[in-house]
């Protein structure tokens, strides 16, 4: 790691004044700036150890008071502070009882040690694990180069949809569950105001902006993630398939949130992770389930529809079969 100075911020304002760029902009040679914020610090440290970023100053936002609470309101839903750790979410009984897909996604993420350190906001802000992106030797599209090395290279773990530009997949499997719940991010702006960004608009596809995976700009800090209220007819489930049962990134992961009336589905939200460069909704699968009974056959039809537009690369067609299988299982788990 390069050497750098350290600033322990005690307010958002201080952090916004001290930091002058984002991790993503630091990876972009055209942008200026040398100080970045960190909270749990896992991905920042990882990128630094790999020599991908070399900040001159780290602004620590881990100790800013008020960002580490989980608040629950029967009408507004659950508000998870940006600095809440993944472990705190995993162990929270309100989340376990009402937002099962989120609890499952968190409990399958990373390792117990990393969950004790990682924050929910940092998990959403982390950069892709594509091994070409993570290698200083490879000047890939996302880092300002002119080639996607995965396209004709080792693409076993890459995107099976929307992979015409960059073929990486987003690293957060928790985002898959948050997308299915329709979470909203609260972001503090530099002028002291706050904006709310639905998670669907938070992630940026490589077609829109190859150098960023989310909309965060320098001076903007996520302060909370809000999940809308659920009722006793809301059921959810999440399945992640990795190469190993223990610690591993998702080869494929799916989250399903349905509103049921008996066994009939009134409304469905289905999200796919590790399928596309950003977590995506499976709209065609949702349409098949809406106003239908949840059964073996409707679940199978929805799973097929979710993968209809798949365009796998040379080495990752196996992921299409995994998606179909785990989506069908996850849908059936809601009843």
């Amino acid at each position, binding site marked *: 790691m390069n*050497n750098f100075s350290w600033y322990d911020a005690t307010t958002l304002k201080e952090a916004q004044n001290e930091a002058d760029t984002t991790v993503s902009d630091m990876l972009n040679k055209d942008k200026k700036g040398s100080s970045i914020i960190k909270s749990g610090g896992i991905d920042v440290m990882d990128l630094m*150890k790999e020599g991908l970023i070399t900040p001159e*100053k780290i602004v620590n936002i*881990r100790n800013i008071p008020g960002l580490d609470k989980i608040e629950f309101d029967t009408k507004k839903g659950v508000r998870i502070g940006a600095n809440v750790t993944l472990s705190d979410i995993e162990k929270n009984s309100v989340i376990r009882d009402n937002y099962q897909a989120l609890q499952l996604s968190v409990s399958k993420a990373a*390792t117990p040690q990393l969950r004790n350190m990682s924050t929910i906001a940092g998990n959403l802000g982390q950069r892709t694990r594509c091994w070409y992106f993570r290698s200083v030797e490879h000047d890939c599209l996302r880092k300002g180069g002119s080639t996607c090395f995965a396209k004709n290279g080792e693409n076993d773990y890459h995107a099976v949809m929307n992979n015409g530009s960059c073929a990486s997949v987003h690293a957060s499997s928790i985002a898959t569950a948050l997308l299915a719940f329709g979470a909203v991010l609260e972001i503090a702006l530099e002028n002291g105001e706050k904006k709310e960004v639905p998670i669907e608009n938070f992630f940026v596809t490589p077609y829109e902006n190859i150098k960023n995976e989310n909309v965060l700009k320098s001076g903007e800090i996520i302060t909370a993630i809000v999940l809308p209220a659920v009722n006793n007819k809301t059921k959810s489930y999440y399945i992640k398939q990795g190469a190993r049962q223990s*610690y591993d990134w998702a080869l494929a992961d799916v989250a399903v949130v349905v509103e049921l009336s008996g066994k009939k589905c009134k409304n469905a939200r289905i999200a796919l992770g590790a399928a596309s460069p950003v977590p995506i909704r499976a709209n065609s699968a949702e349409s098949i389930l809406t106003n239908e009974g949840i059964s073996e056959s409707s679940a199978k039809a929805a799973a097929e529809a979710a993968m209809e537009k798949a365009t796998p690369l040379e080495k990752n067609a196996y992921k299409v079969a995994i998606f179909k299988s785990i989506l069908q299982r996850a849908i059936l788990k809601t009843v």
Partner: protein
Amino acid sequence: MKDDKKIIKKGVSRRGFLKGAGLTTAGTIVLQTGVLAKTKENSVQSKTVGPGPVNVEMNVNGKTRSLTIEPRSTLAQALRDEIQLTGTKMVCDRGACSACTVWVDDIPVNACMTFAMDVGDRKVVTIEGLAENGKLHPIQEAFIDHDATQCGYCTPGMIMSTAHLLKENPNPTLEDVKHATRGNYCRCGTYPHVFKATLAAAKKIK
């Protein structure tokens, strides 16, 4: 604490020798005061510290230790290189193997992915701090009884993970043990013995 260091350094060790070019032996460094360790005294003028060496105090295994670190030092480096607590192993240095597991305020973390600056006044417990009055922790005894180590490199991390599990959950199932050690890699493949040892230790503690 400086005296401790001298005593340890009297013996010629490979590690001490290799450390020769390192941070602590530089003669002309200007030391800054760590903001996190000194917040209570409120004596710090600028909140920016580093990039050079920084003096901090850290509570490790119940004792307050004075350390000279840099903002880029990881907790694993600080423990191993500064206070010679080499029981904490550095293997992958990326949070992928958990050989470096220590407790910070009783929570297991990867020391290799923790900035030493982030510890502040929280309490660190390493593998060296588990035994009490010379008596091994029951999980350490159980690892010996059940032959749960081979090369031993993952062992301190495995013990810190499983000892924490027993603190949180005195009656773990096999699944609980597996979940608690999901991040701990053992390339020798001692997992079945680690699981047996943990379940046996749980029974013994009761």
